[in-house]
């Protein structure tokens, strides 16, 4: 063990600047950040995308992404300078003393090798352990991380385990050489709330057991609150605020931190249901199956009233996206019927008239793939106007400008390609494209889950404002209960293709809950730093 352990910091970043090379010359993305991490300490790095938090995380490994470089400052790991250090010295460090856990485990594992071989790769390759020894340790590590079947799971391939299990296997892999520092780069962002709890638990266990120091990168303050001793808020490559977790949550100093904290409080009053009115959309006893005969929806009945927001909640695989496909006609139901505005809707999209199609529009989860990269914003918005409303020339251009105004973008944005927009702006364009058709119902499929929290908040506010102005109905598909609490009038909880609970927001969110609703609700991270511990205590008490 190091003699000066406990006194000298493990990682010390001072005045670090990082530059990226662009076509217009170098551009600085990190503007002089200082960071100190002691042994066994966990520091949460939080900020929106583009804040430079991942760049900083990678810097802890002495690594600058392709096309970027450290232009000034120093990174000292246990006294060793990493800026400008030879690759050989860095290689001796990475994987052994500093490890990295990436956001998407599915993209980070090599699909051609099983988990345990990838675990053993570094310890065996560096000659630290024999293969047998490494495999035995891997199984022990899998057990520590509460993976099912710890003896056998290592012999599976990445596609044979679930997303949460894969993420835990990756954490095990990072621990293979018992590093002194682990960088977690958004390890739970791509996961459902219930899975997120499992992964958070695993991280907490491992960090406590081995006393490893960690940099925990995330954009979710509630998640980092469970993990970190200290939190550092980053924005545009600068440190906004840094402090001890509890202090930061109770008395944030900067306005930006308060914004991040305040996000979860916003909720709007629910619109009361108008009694006796025929709902806009009624799905009656619908079942549906995919080609192979695999049944994905079982006897689902829902209703969406006029000018109301109905949220469909569930984990991935719960059938909520399939329900959207049934309503849009992409997946014809095997049983049941769909009524729109009182009249039955043809089951297949092809049988529907242009007037039907116009009235139901869709907004997608990932705005990157929902916009044709080779069309300018003008062209994208023009098509529904031309196609449904037969507008031309001046009138059409005026309408486009008005749509841009509605989504709070300058008319100048019309000339841009999607590549030239940020994620939030792209999603706004998707909203404008849906609005251009002047629909009665908009299906929002996880529209905020690919966005940063503040941006997502902006989108939700925009949607609510548009609903008030245009009186459209929203069918809001999401796994994020925070969003649901903020905007839904009614909530439908789905599990395994069935509706397990539905009703007005207050009714569903208030006890007594259906057990599955209870599980979902309790899994939503809270700002309280003790939330995870209490949750785990409560759950183990319930089972044990």
């Amino acid at each position: 063990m190091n003699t000066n352990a406990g006194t000298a910091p493990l990682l010390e970043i001072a005045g670090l600047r990082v530059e990226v090379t662009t076509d217009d010359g170098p551009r600085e993305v990190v503007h002089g950040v200082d960071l100190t991490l002691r042994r066994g300490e966990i520091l949460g790095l939080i900020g929106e995308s583009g804040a430079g938090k991942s760049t900083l995380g990678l810097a802890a490994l002495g690594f600058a992404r392709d096309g970027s470089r450290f232009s000034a400052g120093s990174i000292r790991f246990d006294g060793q300078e990493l800026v400008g250090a030879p690759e050989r010295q860095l290689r001796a460090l990475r994987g052994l003393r500093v490890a990295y856990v990436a956001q998407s485990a599915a993209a980070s594992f090599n699909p051609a090798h099983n988990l345990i071989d990838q675990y053993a790769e570094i310890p065996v390759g560096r000659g630290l352990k024999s293969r047998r020894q490494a495999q035995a340790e891997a199984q022990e590590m899998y057990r520590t991380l509460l993976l099912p079947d710890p003896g056998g799971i290592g012999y599976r391939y990445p596609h044979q385990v679930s997303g949460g299990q894969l993420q835990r296997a990756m954490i095990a892999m990072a621990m293979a050489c018992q590093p002194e520092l682990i960088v977690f780069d958004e390890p739970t962002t791509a996961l459902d709330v219930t899975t997120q709890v499992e992964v958070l638990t695993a991280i907490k266990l491992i960090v406590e057991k081995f006393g490893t120091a960690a940099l925990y990168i995330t954009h979710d303050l509630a998640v980092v609150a469970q993990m970190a001793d200290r939190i550092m808020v980053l924005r545009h490559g600068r440190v906004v605020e840094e402090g001890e977790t509890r202090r930061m949550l109770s008395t944030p100093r900067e306005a930006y931190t308060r914004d991040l904290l305040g996000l979860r409080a916003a909720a709007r009053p629910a619109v009361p249901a108008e009694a006796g009115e025929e709902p806009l959309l009624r799905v009656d006893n619908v079942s549906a199956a995919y080609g192979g005969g695999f049944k994905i929806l079982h006897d689902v009945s829902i209703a969406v009233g006029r000018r109301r927001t109905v949220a469909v909640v569930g984990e991935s695989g719960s059938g909520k996206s399939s329900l959207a496909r049934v309503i849009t006609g992409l997946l014809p139901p095997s049983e049941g019927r769909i009524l729109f505005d009182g009249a039955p809707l043809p089951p297949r999209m092809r049988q529907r008239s242009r007037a039907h199609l116009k009235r139901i529009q869709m907004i997608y989860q990932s705005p990157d793939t929902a916009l044709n990269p080779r069309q300018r914003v003008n062209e994208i918005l023009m098509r529904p106007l031309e196609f449904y409303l037969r507008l031309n020339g001046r009138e059409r251009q005026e309408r486009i400008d008005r749509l841009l105004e509605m989504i709070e973008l300058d008319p100048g944005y019309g000339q841009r390609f999607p590549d030239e927009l940020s994620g939030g702006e792209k999603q706004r364009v998707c909203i404008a494209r849906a609005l251009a058709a002047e629909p009665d119902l908009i299906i929002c499929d996880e529209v905020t889950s690919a966005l940063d929290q503040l941006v997502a908040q902006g989108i939700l506010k925009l949607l609510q404002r548009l609903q008030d102005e245009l009186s459209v109905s929203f069918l809001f598909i999401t796994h994020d209960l925070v969003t649901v609490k903020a905007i839904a009038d009614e909530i439908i909880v789905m599990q395994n293709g069935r509706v397990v609970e539905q009703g007005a927001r207050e009714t569903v969110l208030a006890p007594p809950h259906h057990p599955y609703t209870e599980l979902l609700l309790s899994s939503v991270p809270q700002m309280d730093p003790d939330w995870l511990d209490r949750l785990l205590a409560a759950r183990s008490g319930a089972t044990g």
Partner: protein
Amino acid sequence: MAIHMTGRNGGIGGAGALTAVLAAGLVLAAFAAAALASGKTAGLAVGAAAALHLVLLARALLRPSATPSAATAILLATVVYGAGALALHSRFAAFPGSGLVGLAILHVTVLTAARQWRTLRKAPPSAMIGLAVTFAYAMIAALAPLLAPYPEAAIVGSEYEPWGADFVLGTDNLGRDMLSRLIFATRNTISIAAVATALGFAAGAAAGLLAATIGGWIDTAMGRVVDILMAIPQLIFALLILTIVGTSITSLVLVIAVVDATRVFRLVRAVSMNVLALEFVEAARLRGEGLLWIIRREVLPNITAPLIVEFGIRFCFVFLFISSLSFLGLGIQPPTADWGSMVRENAALIVYGDITPLLPAGAIAVLAVAINLAVDWFLHTSSGLKE
């Protein structure tokens, strides 16, 4: 997308551009006068084309985005062409069509080069060489009758004469000038390959796009048909069909197009599938858009880069294929000159250590390499990869 003009730099200045255009104008006027001296119709046609070329050049040069180096390049090319026309004015007058095609190729090349100057300037030397060589081949093909010292099929000397003053590269097995035949072969092989590739490409791409977009049993049926065609070795399939229907240039082109279309079909179907899986296509389908709109507006613009690259590579394969068919005696028929058959006709010389028969083979190899160099670079820039 790296390839588009930004127009940030100032222009080259009105005076500079005007001088340049005037100089080019003088040379082209002389060119037209030379043509006019030998025949009125030819002279008028050449004069009109030269004038059009000049107008378009002037427009390109006077645009504020024109850079000085691009202007110099345009000018130099025009002056060289005009000067060549003046020096060989009797030949230009004898083959006005050839001269016009040459002018057209030159025109398209310099204007494209000027428009893409910023991208072009950053191109690595290998790409520059590839582009220059490909351009040179195109010009030789266009200007073949003007450049060749002797006619294509005339017997002008005795058999297998060595390299010398009269016959720069000697004569072939029948006493025809080797250099002339090489030049004409460039034209024959390249134009047939270009037509065959274009046909095969159009058919394959259309079928691939339709199959991918419609999907279902139509996709399956088309896929199976293509599988069957692809199961028969390419060369044997071509030999079989050509033996049955006889070897004419039309049948050659059609057979190659069919064989080629199967490969293009597979590629286009695969890349279209990737685009079709994206949500903007689903959005278009949900809007109620028809098949053609989806293909033309949503899919095609997103697969242009791989398509162009595929075209370049297919083109290489096709002229190699034509050459091998000709070598086997089923390709382009004598006395039409063609690289493949020229290798075969003069193969006997190899025994005596003479490298002449290898020249046409070399011509094939150089063009294939040049096209691939250019295409590699294009793929690199259009895919957004950086060195």
